[in-house]
């Protein structure tokens, strides 16, 4: 007990040189070794025993937890936020320099179906779930430094609570949507001859010779597989975090959180590029996933092998036929549907 009192009397620096203090005795605080060990400054994790029964209840102080907390704020949130902002900036610069990639030769008016109703439903289900999770996730990670100054603590409290519950409840749906997407799109995302060449030529940026592309180009395939694999990791780590009733200790939870966040941030950044290319970045791209149809010139220009298949199988339809399939009234005096 007395030893505990001694640290108060330990002189850290010694007496001031120009004073009349008698020289004191320098002694190591006998409690400091104990406290150093407890505090795990040398990195060893001490497992004690406790009357409380539970996972990790034998750990008095989790020094690594402090590291994790600091990592989360100073590195993860910090660099994560910078990365997201950087992606926006890069996309803006890209748009300013390159502009919208137009259809070669302009739109012809003749269309071909690229995605069925089911494929579009699966894509947009995943997209909605992903965006809900991304939004709530970003609020959870970056909310405090960015939003408290803007909204104040009470409103942010509501927002953060809502985001946590929303993120947790919608989370498992991401795994389900991912699996639906996998089954729907996997066949078109398998490796084909010419994909590596496409990649090495940067998708056509390098070199003059025109590249041949199938239904999906290598960039799209890489995004698909990244989404599937990293998405799976994010989903599973998310499930680990969501259901801590299976004996996960602090270490597993910390690691899961780090994997979850880095994976999710990576996916979010790349998805911004995907969203850019699928909307503003490329003429006719958004129509593909909303109406399901693309102009045949778009197909021939960007996915020549698929375009050729459409020509061979007689799948190209006129603008009138497209209107008929959408239920537009035929022009007065026109023939009824044949």
């Amino acid at each position, binding site marked *: 007990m007395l030893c505990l009192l001694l640290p108060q009397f330990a002189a850290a620096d010694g007496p001031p040189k120009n004073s009349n203090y008698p020289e004191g005795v320098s002694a190591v605080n006998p409690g400091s070794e104990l406290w150093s060990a407890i505090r795990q400054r040398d990195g060893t994790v001490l497992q004690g025993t406790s009357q409380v029964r539970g996972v990790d209840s034998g750990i008095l102080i989790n020094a690594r937890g402090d590291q994790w907390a600091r990592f989360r704020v100073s590195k993860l949130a910090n660099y994560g936020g910078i990365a997201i902002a950087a992606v926006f900036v890069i996309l803006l610069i890209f748009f300013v320099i390159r502009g919208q990639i137009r259809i070669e030769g302009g739109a012809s008016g003749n269309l071909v179906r690229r995605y069925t*109703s*089911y494929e*579009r*439903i699966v894509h*947009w*289900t995943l997209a*909605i*779930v992903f965006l809900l999770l991304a939004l709530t996730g970003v609020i959870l990670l970056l909310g405090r430094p960015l939003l408290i100054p803007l909204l104040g603590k009470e409103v942010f*409290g*509501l927002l953060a*609570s*809502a*985001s*946590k*519950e*929303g993120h947790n*409840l*919608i989370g*498992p*749906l991401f795994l*389900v*949507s991912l699996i639906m997407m996998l089954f729907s799109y996997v066949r078109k995302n398998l490796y084909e001859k010419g994909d590596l060449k496409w990649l090495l030529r940067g998708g056509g940026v390098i070199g003059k010779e025109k590249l041949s592309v199938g239904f999906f180009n290598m960039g799209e395939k890489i995004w698909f597989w990244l989404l599937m694999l990293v998405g799976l990791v994010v989903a599973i780590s998310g499930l680990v975090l969501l259901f801590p009733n299976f004996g996960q200790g602090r270490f597993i939870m910390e690691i899961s959180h780090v994997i979850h966040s880095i994976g999710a941030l990576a996916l979010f950044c790349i998805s911004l590029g995907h969203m850019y290319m699928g909307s503003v970045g490329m003429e006719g791209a958004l129509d593909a996933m*909303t109406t*399901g149809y693309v102009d045949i010139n778009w197909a021939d220009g960007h996915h020549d092998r698929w375009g050729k298949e459409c020509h061979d199988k007689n799948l190209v339809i006129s603008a009138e036929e497209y209107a008929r*399939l*959408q*239920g537009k009234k035929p022009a007065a005096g026109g023939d009824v549907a044949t």
Partner: protein
Amino acid sequence: MGSIIFASRKQDLSVARASASAGAIKTIFSRFLPHKEIAAQVSIQYIAGYLFHLGLFALLFFAAPHVLFVEENLLGFGWTPLPHWGFIIAAQAAFLGLIILWLRRMVDPVLRLISTLDDHIAAILTFVVMLTGCFALLEGSTGLRLLHRFTVELWLIYFPFSALMHSFTFLPSRAFTGAWFGRRGVDS
């Protein structure tokens, strides 16, 4: 509902081959499943539809906060609610089903032609009610619980005489059609 149930109906003067009331009752139950001849073409509607409806039904009547609400404010008694994991599964199913169904309404040419503003409002309003409910799950924030109660009130005001009334009118409708086919001796 009153004008549907209590209106007088013209008597059918033809000789029935079989019982109309039996047909009515049978059809109330038979329409829960698709005819096998078209089942493959309508699988999305039935699968997503049941995910949504069963999930929502489970949530509405068996989520613990709801049961408590009924006990404290409406009936004075409650019943056994879902365990937490049951609630989570029901919520997942309801969300997934509703998202898929609403997206289908946006994407399929037939639904794009026949859908009305009413259909979209019904879907989105229901989604917002479910979402605010999910936000308020922690039950610690009065603000979020109020938001949920508010959206529920909006939903209840919108309910009568909107597409949402199908939750009641499907019974007389199935019965009418079942009776029509039933008196002709046809199982529908």
